[in-house]
């Protein structure tokens, strides 16, 4: 078991989205499961950070840090729900 979870991705997601994201809900494009981003299964010892749906393993979010940019791919998330207070 080499994975952690979306909690550990909080700083990176904050860089990408400009806000705390771990408590926000995402819907898996693969299986439709709805979970807080904190519960995603995260593989960090890879060339990028790969977050997968905890229910079905679909790749939800991939973040690759380049020297002067961050590329974020969120093809595995059907929707994100941002709580506005």
């Amino acid at each position, binding site marked *: *078991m*080499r*994975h*952690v*979870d*979306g*909690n*550990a991705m*909080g*700083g990176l997601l*904050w*860089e990408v989205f*400009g*806000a*705390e*994201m*771990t*408590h*926000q809900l995402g819907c898996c494009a693969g299986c439709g499961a709805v979970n*807080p*981003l*904190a*519960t995603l299964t995260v593989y*960090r*010892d890879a060339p990028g950070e790969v977050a997968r749906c905890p229910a079905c393993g679909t790749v939800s979010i991939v973040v690759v840090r380049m020297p002067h940019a961050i590329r974020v791919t969120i093809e595995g998330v059907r929707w994100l729900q941002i*709580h*506005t*207070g």
Partner: protein
Amino acid sequence: MAGAEIQRRLNWLVAVVVGVVEETPSVRSLTLSCPGWPGHRPGQHIDLRLTAPDGYQAQRSYSIATPSEGELVTITVERIFEGEVSPFLLDVVAPGDRLELRGPIGGYFVWDPGEGPPVFLAGGGSGVVPLMAMLRARISSGDGTPMHLLVSARSRDDIVYREELETLSHHDGVVVTLTLTRSRPEGWTGYDRRVDGAMLRDLVMSPDSGLVSYVCGPTGFTESVAGLLVALGHPPHRVLTERFGPTGG
């Protein structure tokens, strides 16, 4: 809080090490004084960034062990065998050193005092760190929320914050339970095994109490304990988890 969270920027800050506590032979707490620190919630973490003379950088996340207290942030670090960062934090860092950090981070695995539903905390090894921030906040705020902390450690000497936990177990409305999985001192009467369903049935309130559980530890511990709680009828959305893996160090 949510509105303020969205406004805040996550900038790298420079903190100074102002306190060091050797918790166990392999665990150390560092208290950092961090000008510009906006305060934090129990359960949140920081990202720490180290820079070598040739520009190489390493970044790790560490849970905060204490409730918000001005510019002070205490983290507790466990030595990871052949790790890159934790041996440095345990062996090299000394009071007066400057460290670069950002935070606080985390909006899910957090607990705020406020007379909410009863709380069950389960920590494996150094997974107790963010739970300790919750327990300390519960006590220092005078909040009356019933709170039960279960700590699983290999031996008595491996229990992080042991002395404090032994004192806290007499605090009103707070229960601390220890289980020692590998070796026990002479005359030990507590649990002596990995957390299992029977242990949780003994310790944990029934689901209709509205109990909220926080489980933190290595991935295997966290997934096992969270699974057992769900099997006992606790709704998954009230079993919050934080896993840390063997990676990084």
